Structure formats: structure tokens, C-alpha cells
């Protein structure tokens, strides 16, 4: 191989020369890679919170009002978003900060018997809406999480919740999908969309969002000046 093609190949097609590379060189690359990803994650979050601050405040006020009036939070999602839903419920039910009250929150992805029964007998698109019908009450809040904004079972849950006079909040990603469309049509009270197509960045931002929201809700609850009319 000529010098020029060898240099070029090593620089631009390094995987062709893996066996020739020193371990520390690979470590340097991995280090750079993880720092780049972390940097991107921070950039996405910063932009999201700067642009969506008012909408997040709205979501906080909706939740605080519901809790203040004796309502509860129903939260749902699929896959990774289901684990986020579980996490949110635990945060509200089991506050780790002294002085913060335990608040009623139920994750609709927890009950495997219920979820599989509805999925098997009726269809997966109904797994959450059926639980909203049984558990939801006027004045509660339904929070649905979807990285694409397009989960059919969430859209149905939102529609059911709205018909039962629950307040509705969505966490989405990308362009917001069907959830953003619902919000535009006035059928979803708040839709918080992380504007990136990277699912990992969306999920990372959602995690920060619900921790921030939890804190915001408690702050509002403790300061009655923030109480909505």
C-alpha cells in the first residue's frame, strides 16, 4: 500500500486497522466518544428547558391543583417509557426529601395481569384506557410518555381521560407525533416534546423533566400564592 493510501485508510477507515492500534488509542477514542454523547445530552436538555419552561410550569400547576383537590396522578408509557412511568409514580408516592408529602400516583404499566388480560382479550391499544375507565376520576391527571408521540394506546388513553374530565399531560419526542397533534387540536392539555430524533436523548430529557416537575409540584403546593384560581 502506498503511503498516501495507508495514511488515508488509517485515518478514515480505522476499523480496517484495529489490530494495529494500541489499546490506549482505543481508550482515547472511547473517552472522546462518551464525552461527545454527554455533551450532546446536555445541549438537548438545555435547549428543551429553555424553550418549554412555560409549558412545564403549566404542567406543574395542573398537577398541583389536582393533588390539592384530592385527585391523583395516573401515569403510563410503553417499553422504556413504562419504566419512566413507574419511576414517576414512585417519586410521588415515596418522596425521598424530608418535608415533601407522599402524593397518590399510579403507574398503569405495573399490573401485568391487567395489561396482559386486556392485550390478549381486547387489544394492546386498550391496555391503558381500560384502566383509566376503572381508576380515573374527574379532577385526576393522566400523564402519558412516548418518545415518538405516536403510541396508539396512549392516544386512546388521552381521549378516554378527556371524556372523563381528567387533565392530560404528554411527554413526547421528535416532532411530537399524534400527541402533538392532539395538543394542537385542544385535546391534550400540555404536550412537552423533546425536539430530537435520538431516542436516547429524548429519554434522558424525560428523566430530568419528571424530576424537575416533581420538585416544581411540591414547591407550588407549599406556596399557596402559586395556587391557581
Amino acid at each position: 500500500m502506498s503511503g498516501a493510501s495507508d495514511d488515508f485508510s488509517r485515518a478514515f477507515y480505522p476499523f480496517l486497522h484495529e489490530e494495529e492500534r494500541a489499546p490506549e488509542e482505543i481508550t482515547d477514542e472511547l473517552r472522546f466518544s462518551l464525552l461527545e454523547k454527554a455533551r450532546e445530552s446536555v445541549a438537548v436538555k438545555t435547549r428543551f428547558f429553555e424553550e418549554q419552561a412555560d409549558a412545564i410550569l403549566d404542567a406543574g400547576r395542573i398537577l398541583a391543583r389536582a393533588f390539592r383537590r384530592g385527585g391523583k396522578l395516573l401515569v403510563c408509557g410503553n417499553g422504556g417509557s413504562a419504566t419512566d412511568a413507574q419511576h414517576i409514580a414512585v417519586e410521588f408516592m415515596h418522596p425521598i426529601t424530608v418535608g415533601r408529602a407522599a402524593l397518590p400516583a399510579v403507574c398503569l404499566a405495573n399490573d401485568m395481569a391487567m395489561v396482559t388480560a386486556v392485550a390478549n382479550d381486547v387489544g394492546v391499544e386498550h391496555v391503558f384506557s381500560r384502566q383509566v375507565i376503572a381508576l380515573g376520576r374527574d379532577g385526576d391527571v393522566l400523564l402519558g410518555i412516548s418518545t415518538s408521540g405516536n403510541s396508539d394506546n396512549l392516544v386512546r388513553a388521552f381521549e378516554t381521560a378527556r371524556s372523563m374530565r381528567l387533565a392530560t399531560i404528554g411527554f413526547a419526542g421528535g416532532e411530537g407525533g399524534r400527541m402533538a397533534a392532539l395538543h394542537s387540536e385542544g385535546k391534550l392539555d400540555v404536550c412537552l416534546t423533546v425536539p430530537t430524533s435520538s431516542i436516547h436523548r429524548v429519554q434522558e430529557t424525560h428523566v430530568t423533566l419528571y424530576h424537575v416537575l416533581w420538585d416544581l409540584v411540591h414547591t407550588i403546593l407549599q406556596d399557596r400564592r402559586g395556587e391557581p384560581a
Partner: protein
Amino acid sequence: MKFMDEYRQRDVARRLADEIARLTDRPLKLMEVCGGHTHTIFKYGIEDLLPPNVQMIHGPGCPVCVIPLGRVDDSISIALEPGVIFTTFGDMMRVPGSSTNLLDAKAAGADVRMVYSPLDALKIAKKHPDRRVVFLALGFETTAPSTALTLQQAAKDRVDNFSVFCNHITIVPALKAILDSPDLKIDGFVGPGHVSTVIGTRPYDFVAREYGKPLVVAGFEPLDILQSVYMIVRQIVERRAEVENQYGRVVLRDGNRRAMEAMFEVFEPREFFEWRGLGSIARSGMRLRASYAAWDAERLFSVPGLRIADPKACQCGEILKGVKKPWECKVFGTACTPETPIGSCMVSSEGACAAYYNFGRLSKVAERAAAMAEK
């Protein structure tokens, strides 16, 4: 026309096709990586000549098609900066971003100009020393050398008002990503012709050595493609996996030394770069080295730098991976046409959708599917 008609002889094409059919009736999927090959295949009806068991899968070798929405938006953002003359190849002007395209930005008052080469953009910069001229550089290793040489010229001539917004990508990492993809089961590859004139054939050795797939570097005339397909099928039948060079009249084993030297001096690999439809591929994009920072538009301008999801209706991603055919896209030929493109595959002449649309392949696909079903 001499040296072109020889590569378009109908009787030779027919003989090659007959030989391919004679070799095997086993279903085979062969991928042509290069968009220029896709164009030739459709323009000359190569698929009609091939036996029904040999299916051509159209790969992501169209640099306009794979540029993500976010980078298009970044380009428009730079074009809208005051005092900027934004120069680009023609087909990029109509590629949709998240809300508009460069042509619409031009209509709205941005100074966007079509050029045929980066040297044209450099000339404009020399002619307008009071304006910042930005060249949208994109393409594979084929066009990257011309950008590199232009930047070397800009540095030599001290043209300080010239910058490059670099979106060059490299095909070899993408080839590896395709080979590693569980969705795709490709039996052989028609290797890119123009890229190979620059990088040679040596970088493809891993395809045969590590993945056991034949790869034949092909020229762009119809007989080039047919002969390459014949060479691939013969390898498969003979249970060989080698890199062969059908385009020997242009491509050398070690490529173009001067071109690679220029690229090596000017560019360095990005850690990762997003490809529409394929996601981020490690070390597949190029950026300017620090020594050329003064000509780097990404350092001079603040761009949104967002990853934007493709429009819901757009299935360019699946088409670029070869998982779907253009006519299987819900909006092909209806909402998405060359006049009103939704995705970039319909804009670029090398895009599979544009080629399908322009050369009327839809009826032939139905015939081939029926023929395979009968077998």
C-alpha cells in the same frame, strides 16, 4: 459516440443477461451501493434484463439522499445570515428541510447560488471580497478531493472570505454498517465506481475477507453493470468471495494518491455523523482540520445543530437501506413527486425514488413479482 456505444451494445447485454440466468436460479439479492449505478440500472432497464431470481437492492450511495434534515436546516440557517453568498450543487437546492428548502430561502431573499464545483465558489469569493461566501460541501470520497484541493487553493491565495460547510461522508463505514445490519441479507455488492477511482479497491477487502461477500467495482455504462453482476453471481456459484475490479480502465488498486493526500491534509473524521435512514455511523463524516479552521463555516456560524425527525409520511430511511422499494412508500408518486418532494430520495437524480419515477419502473415491478410467484 466512441468509447460509449461500445458499452451499450444491446446484443452483448442480452448475452450477459442470458449467462447470468444460466449460472443459477437461486434467489439472490445484490446491492448496488452507488447512486450513479442506481441511475444507470433504471435508465437502461437493467432489472428487466436480469432473471427474476436476481434482485437489485438500491443502497445509500446518494449523498444528497442521506443528508439529514437537521443539516439541511443548518445550511438554510447559514444562507439566511446577512452578507452571506451561499453556494451549492443544484440538486441540494430543492431538498426539503424541516420547514423550507434553499430554493425557497433564495426566493425569500437569501443569496443562494448554484455552482458546478467548489472552485466556482472560490471564484465568487475572490470576486466579492466584501461578502462571506460559503460552499455547501457534500458527497462521498468522490467529491471530497475537489473540496480539499479548493481549500488548499484558498489557503494559498489567502482568500479569507471563503468557507466550507462540510457534509462529506465516507462510503466504507456505511458499507460496514450495512453488512452488520440484521435487517439486510445481501449476497453480493456492486462496488462504487467513482469513489473507487479515489480510494482504490483495497479498502473493500474486508467485505470478502470478514463477511464472505463478493464485491465487484463497476463502471457506469449498462454493460459495466451487467458484467459486474455476472462476475458477482459467478463468484457466488463458485463459492468464492473476492474483491474484483470490473472498472479497471479507471480504477487502480491503490486509488489516486494525490486525491488522498489532499483529503488527509484538509479533513479529519468526525466521531460520528448522522445518515438519513441509517442513523449515526461512527467515523463516517469528515470535518475540516484545525489547521483549516479559518475556512470552516461550522466554526464561523452558529447553526441550530438539531437532529430533526423525518416527516412521518417519508420512508426514505427504509428505501435507503434497501428494505423497501420506492413504490412501496405510501406517498410515492402521489404526495411525493419530483415537483413536490417530501423526501430527498425524490430530489436527487441519484435517488432511487426519482429514478423509479422518471423511468417508469412501477409496471415492471408487478411483472417481476408475478414471474417469481409462478416459479
